[in-house]
């Protein structure tokens, strides 16, 4: 695309090229962001507002969004804060997401499946619940989003080495909690 390879400095307002970049970013990563939100909201349709807010930020800050796959990590970084606001009650609906919200609500109802939660899952959930937010987030993003420590570092804006050590401690605490939960069940 010629627009993306033009010499910089001709204009601060090349909206057309910004639109193209946003469209490319949205097309590439919207599903990943939506999946991220769906795993974290209690009501599926709320994920529509999470993704809407996340990409509104991206649209406003399109000049700050890195290129390529780094954009996905940048978006996760925004989405986690939007989710945090959501969980703190700072959530507000945007009309922009109306259609997606309706789609999610309908689809979830139509595909409602009784998920069988076996004892193992219940134990793991309880162990996870007992972790602090930071540990839990690291384990979830590693497992659910499949992020490496380096990628997590980019999302959390901390060095990868810090993530690795935090992750080690989180794993250890998870194992400990899982053992405790298991023993509690047995006793």
């Amino acid at each position, binding site marked *: 695309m*010629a627009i993306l390879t*033009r010499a910089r400095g*001709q*204009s*601060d307002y*090349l*909206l*057309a*090229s910004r*639109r193209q970049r946003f469209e490319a970013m*949205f*097309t590439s990563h*919207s*599903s990943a962001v*939506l*999946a991220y939100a*769906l*795993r974290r*909201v209690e009501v*599926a349709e709320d994920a529509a507002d999470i*993704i*809407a807010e996340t990409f*509104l*930020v991206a*649209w*406003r*800050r399109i000049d*700050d969004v*890195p290129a390529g796959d780094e954009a996905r990590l940048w978006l996760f*970084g*925004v989405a986690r*804060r939007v989710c*945090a*606001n959501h969980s*703190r009650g700072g959530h*507000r609906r*945007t009309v*922009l997401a109306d*259609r*997606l919200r*309706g*789609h*999610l609500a309908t*689809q979830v109802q139509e*595909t409602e499946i009784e998920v069988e939660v076996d004892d193992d*899952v219940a134990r*793991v*959930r309880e162990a996870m619940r007992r972790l602090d937010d930071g540990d839990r987030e690291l*384990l*979830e993003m*590693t*497992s*659910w989003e499949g992020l490496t420590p380096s990628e997590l570092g*980019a999302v959390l*804006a*901390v*060095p990868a080495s810090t993530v690795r050590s935090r992750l080690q401690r989180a*794993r250890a605490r*998870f*194992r400990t909690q899982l053992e405790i939960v298991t023993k509690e069940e047995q006793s």
Partner: protein
Amino acid sequence: MNDSMDAQVRRTARMSDERIAALVGSTAEADLMGRILATSPANVRELVDEPGLAPAPSSGRGRLRPTRRRLVSLAVAASVGAAALFTVQAVQQDEGGQVWAAYAVEVAEGAPRLLVDDEDWSVEYANEFEPDRGSMDFTDGTHELWVTWSSTWDLELILNDRRDVAVDEETVTVAGQEGTLLTYPDDEYAVIWQHGDNVVEALTLGGVEESTYRDLIASIHTVDVDTWLSALPQDVVRPADTQAVLAELLADIPLPDGYEITPPAGAVTRHQLVHNVEREAVCAWVTEWVRAADAGDQAAVDVAATALGGARDWAVQDEVEHRDEEFWANIDSIVDDGVLPGGRELVISGDTEVEGWQVVFCV
């Protein structure tokens, strides 16, 4: 994480990968993209509480970080008692008419001074005006027209850039000048033309009937300095007033010895100044805390920690948005625990390598 633990945690997700796969990639998702793109960047601030995300890092100490050139929401100046002192508005008004500040006149004389000749349309947003560039957002409550201009643009470069995405073009007359009307997908249109020294782009955002856009373009006209300045939102801080505004904002904010915040060039809004000053002051104190800690200067560490501990009470916080619990937890980490969030290792922020704590506090 080892595979076993990874699998265990994966099963705790509220929704399985299979179910998620069935929900993503819908046309409703694509619809959202269109809706966001139809939103002026100026309006996004109103639509979303932007979480504390790191933009490009500060370019250096002691200088107010240059604001990105973008449309900003203008607060209602009337709500600020002393606002008249700081706004681009008539400094005198009598039977002889308005007398404008010299800088405002300079900006106005350099601008194409375009307005929409339709009582339903008004100026909703205005950007950081400078003599060689500016931007305005007109709205009738439903549609938006984003008009930007610069005397540094090259008409052919801009046109060639836009032609890559336009699906049609024709020659039209706008504000007495010959312009190029470009049609983009999704019923969006733009006219680009040379207007004196400036190249102007008038872009509609969001789906608009072609006839509506043509009527709008036909109603764009050039006005005199008084008329144009009178139509602007009234919350732009004049360069001549920025020192006074800074002094007001910094009245109860201590700064490290020798540290000065330099006002930005050009006219900005109070909203921008408020956020820049608060961010700069926090960054300055954390930077000082790091310096003192490195030097083993416990007294200076304590001074910085005390200053940061008082940041919640700075009067400017009444006007600052988006300082969430996470931000204050990071401040408390320094003040109460002597622990620097973000750490000292280098990380990539935007396209620059900085230390982790700078990402947390200085961008």
